Every structure is written in structure tokens, then in C-alpha cells.
């Protein structure tokens, strides 16, 4: 269904995906891949930066929280463009279902006054992206879908 939708809207870009180790040593190459695919679809440098930042936050969370620091697992990044929506889906097989409802946006004024470190990744993703959706299937596979409306 999604593929049919994608190819109908955007015959010029077909999905690409990459599979990476769940290891912070690969955050840099995750960003490189985001830039490569972004360049391939003609995104602006500022759009690419925002996608790199959101993906860095998402992948860091998967490594640290979903996989609890186990660097021997895998993370998949899947890239699609349908019309003006550029979508990145981050997938893990950790079995740790995450419900972001428990993590409402922090009140930054209060937050900053408490000098708390951390807890900003989710907030940043929501600021940067037009849509941030978590969904899981029964096999223990979790997906985070990041959607950004782009110019081109």
C-alpha cells in the first residue's frame, strides 16, 4: 500500500534503506547517509541538517534506551519521498515498545531553571519534524517515523 502510494506520487525517487550497528560509533555515517539521500532527492542544506539532527536523536535513543547500550544489535534507516513528504523510518528489533505519551513536551523555562541534563531528544525531534510517530508490531519490532515537508 505504502509503496504504491509512494511510486504514484513520486516516480522519481524509490525507497532506499541502510542497516547499521546499534553503536554510537556509527552516528557519523548515519548522518552521512541522510545527507547522501537528501542530496539525491535535492533537499536544501538546512533541510538536510534538520534531518541529520532528528536521525541522530532517534538513533541515539534506540541505542541507549531501546537496546539499553547493547552495541551488537542492528538499526535500519529507511528513506522515502512521496510528494513533498520526505520520510525516514528508524526500525529496531529490541522488543522494547516505547510509548511517547509518557513523555510530554517539557516546559523549557522550567526545564532550564532546573539545569536538568538529557530528556531533550524527543522534544527536538518534534520541533524539527512535521510528524513524529512511534509504532510497534507484535514481533518486537519498533518503528519511529519522521516526516518532514520539503521544498523540492
Amino acid at each position, binding site marked *: 500500500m505504502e509503496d504504491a502510494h509512494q511510486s504514484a506520487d513520486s516516480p522519481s525517487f524509490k525507497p532506499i534503506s541502510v542497516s547499521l550497528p546499534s553503536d554510537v560509533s556509527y552516528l557519523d555515517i548515519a*548522518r552521512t547517509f541522510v545527507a547522501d539521500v537528501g542530496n539525491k532527492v535535492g533537499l536544501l542544506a538546512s533541510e538536510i541538517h534538520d534531518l*541529520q*539532527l532528528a536521525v541522530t536523536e532517534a538513533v*541515539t535513543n534506540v541505542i541507549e534506551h531501546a537496546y539499553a547500550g547493547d552495541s551488537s544489535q542492528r538499526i535500519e534507516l529507511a528513506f522515502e519521498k512521496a510528494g513533498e513528504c520526505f520520510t525516514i523510518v528508524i526500525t529496531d528489533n529490541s522488543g522494547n515498545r516505547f510509548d511517547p505519551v509518557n513523555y510530554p513536551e517539557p516546559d*523549557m*523555562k522550567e526545564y532550564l531553571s532546573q539545569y536538568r541534563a538529557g530528556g531533550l531528544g524527543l522534544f527536538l525531534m518534534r520541533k*524539527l519534524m512535521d510528524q513524529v510517530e512511534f509504532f510497534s508490531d507484535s514481533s518486537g519490532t519498533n518503528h519511529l517515523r519522521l516526516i518532514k515537508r520539503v521544498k523540492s
Partner: protein
Amino acid sequence: MSLALSQKTIGNIQVLVLAGEIDAQTLPPLEGKLQELLDKGHYSFVLDFQQVSFIASAGLGVLMSVIGTIQENNGDLVIASAQPEVYRTFDLLDFTTLFKFTDSVAAGVALFPNAAGVQGD
């Protein structure tokens, strides 16, 4: 990509020159250096961000974790020469209300009391 870190002292101000990308991978040396300087009683910092092309929230978290101690000791942490996209990351999270930003290291140094006339090394 990695994060290169070098240090110089201007008067009693610690200038940390960073180059590269700041994320959960590259953060530990920066975190260690800041903690080491705090432990030695240094509370006046200028971070030269001119060659920093990327910062993730993990990086902001580390700065957040030291700013309390710094301010309690009448110090400050100034970020100099941040690139537009890096500044934007701070700004999106309202961190621009917590840290001072300047266009150059010299302007950052000048923000500290008793900085006038101090020469760089």
C-alpha cells in the same frame, strides 16, 4: 568525523577550541575536560565553536550539566563563533537564554570581568 579538542588560557579564562561534530560518540573527551577544569577550580569558559559543524542534544546536555556549578561560582560559559545551524539547535531548545553567544573568541573573553587588557597566549 570526530571531535578535536584543544585548550588555551587567556588570563584566568579557559578557552576550549572544538572542531568536528558533537554527539553521543564524540562527547566523552569534552565532558572529561570540562569536569577536569571544574575540579581544578576554573569557572570561566569560552568555547570556540567556529569549527563545530553539528551538535546533538547530548552535547547540550553536557553544557547544561556544568552551567549550574559554573554560575554558583560566579563564572560563566560563553559560546563563540557558532555556525548558524549549530546556533539554531541551541535556539530551538531555548538554550540561548542560558548561554551567551559571541561572534569571536575575543568578544567572548571581553564579556568576563577584569578581562580588559588581558593578552592571549
